């Protein structure tokens, strides 16, 4: 693989926008990314679009990439949709990285888009592909992570108030991010006192229903020079893993551990080198588990990272500086690219009040879906200031 750089990023604010369309959301993100890169529609040679629920909710299982690109004035080029649960956007980013890194294309566009606020079962937790039989017995994604949370509490003795600190921290970060869905600070009492969803996870311990889109332009060094692009961020590595189906302790996700190891190895860095990270904090417990599976701290010691402030802005390794899925929002297919948007912003030194001083290396992590009681897909990207 040759070197690949992120040359432009763009996203819509995340929130509930039931009166807009996936086309309008996608167009807005693409146009913002093109403008940020300083290139035109005709410079884009290939595009991949991540989306997870447009089939079920918008009767559009295929063609979201073509729709959004057409809407933004991009035609004729190869375009493909990428569905990979919550990691759909990350996987679209990875496909684009492979397309440019392979040498086949010089300028690629990764898009992620989702509009969940229109779903008919509003207010109910999302269902999950891959758990149909379990679903007939009552399974929901919050149930899985509630099982993980109780197991984690049982093993470590940590109580729900510690888990809730993740939601408070990420909301504090989101208050500094203009793209975030929820920006008003919340207290520990509010998180713990919000309605129970799946014990011990309350409503404010779970990510919200979100709409939004994000896009990134990836280029080769040759294209960057030819098009005179600046503010480049280098993609050091990209990894994707699927479940091992071994029935490990439910409080850890082995595929995340494997995806992280692969990404560190390819990037030739270790977790101690990471300055800023966006992880898949779909539920408060997830962020703590991810600290451990991604190697940010020893196993079963993740709670201490949030308690000590290590993972807060100003701490040793700020995590979810955007506000994370919990507060920036989680429009499934858009999330992985929104994570890259935040990390690129940080590595360029353009994050304003939420800037991590001197950030040189950043990591994004998305995990999604279930197959037979294991998680299905995990993607990790490591980026570096160029």
């Amino acid at each position, binding site marked *: 693989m040759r070197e690949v750089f992120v040359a432009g990023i763009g996203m819509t604010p995340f929130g509930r926008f039931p009166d807009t369309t996936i086309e309008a959301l996608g167009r807005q993100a693409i146009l913002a990314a093109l403008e940020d890169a300083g290139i035109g529609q005709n410079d884009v040679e290939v595009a991949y679009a991540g989306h997870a629920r447009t089939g079920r909710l918008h009767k559009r299982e295929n063609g979201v990439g073509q729709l959004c690109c057409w809407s933004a004035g991009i035609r004729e080029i190869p375009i493909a949709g990428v569905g990979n649960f919550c990691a759909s956007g990350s996987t679209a980013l990875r496909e684009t990285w492979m397309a440019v890194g392979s040498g086949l294309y010089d300028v690629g566009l990764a898009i992620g888009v989702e509009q969940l606020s229109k779903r008919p079962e509003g207010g*109910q937790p999302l269902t999950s592909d891959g758990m149909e039989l379990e679903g007939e*017995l*009552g*399974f929901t994604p919050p149930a899985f992570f509630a099982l993980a949370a109780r*197991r984690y509490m049982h093993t470590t003795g940590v109580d729900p108030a510690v888990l809730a600190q993740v939601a408070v921290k990420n909301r504090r970060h989101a208050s500094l991010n203009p793209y975030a869905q929820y920006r008003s600070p919340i207290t520990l009492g509010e998180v713990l006192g919000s309605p129970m969803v*799946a014990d011990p996870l309350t409503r404010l311990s779970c990510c919200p229903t979100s709409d939004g889109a994000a896009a990134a332009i990836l280029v080769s060094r040759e294209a960057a020079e030819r098009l005179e692009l600046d503010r480049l961020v280098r993609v050091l590595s990209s990894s994707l893993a699927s479940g091992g189906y071994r029935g490990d302790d439910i*409080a850890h996700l082995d595929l995340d551990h494997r995806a992280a190891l692969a990404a560190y190895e390819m990037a030739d860095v270790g977790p101690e080198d990471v300055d800023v990270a966006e992880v898949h904090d779909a539920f408060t417990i997830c962020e703590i588990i991810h600290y451990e599976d991604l190697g940010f701290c020893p196993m079963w010691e993740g709670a201490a990272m949030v308690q000590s402030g290590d993972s807060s802005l100003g701490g040793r390794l700020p995590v979810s500086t955007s506000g994370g899925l919990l507060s920036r929002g989680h429009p499934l297919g858009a999330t992985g690219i929104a994570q890259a948007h935040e990390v690129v912003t940080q590595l360029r030194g353009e994050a304003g009040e939420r800037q991590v001083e001197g950030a040189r290396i950043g990591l994004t992590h998305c995990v999604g879906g279930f197959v037979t009681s294991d998680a299905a897909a995990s993607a990790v990207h490591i980026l570096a200031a160029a």
Partner: protein
Amino acid sequence: MSSESKRIDDGLEAAPVFEAAGPEVRLLGSECPRCGAVAFPRREVCVRCAGPHRPRELSGAGRLHSWTRLANPPHGFDGELRYGCVDLVEGPRVLAPVADAEPAIGVAVQAVPGAGRHGADGFRFEVRDA
């Protein structure tokens, strides 16, 4: 339970995944003669060694790995639902409802008849004193 009523595995699995055995439920899984891996539901190819599986009836006995209480259960379920993660004595992990309030993690459980979505015939786990 009548044989005419709807089952949770209707249209989802090639073969039934459970059958009643008096007051208990047996889970219909498979095993790998080559590496000894046991699976539930039944499968054709071993995910550990890629060898062929053969059907095996599982006792439905296991240990509770974790549990939760769904305050807002999905469509087709009434009221609060307690949901568990059980490791069967034969090995496979099963996610299914649990009958008991506040069960202890690690406690012995047994699959028994229980209701799925819209009251379909299914199974749940019950704590056993043992």
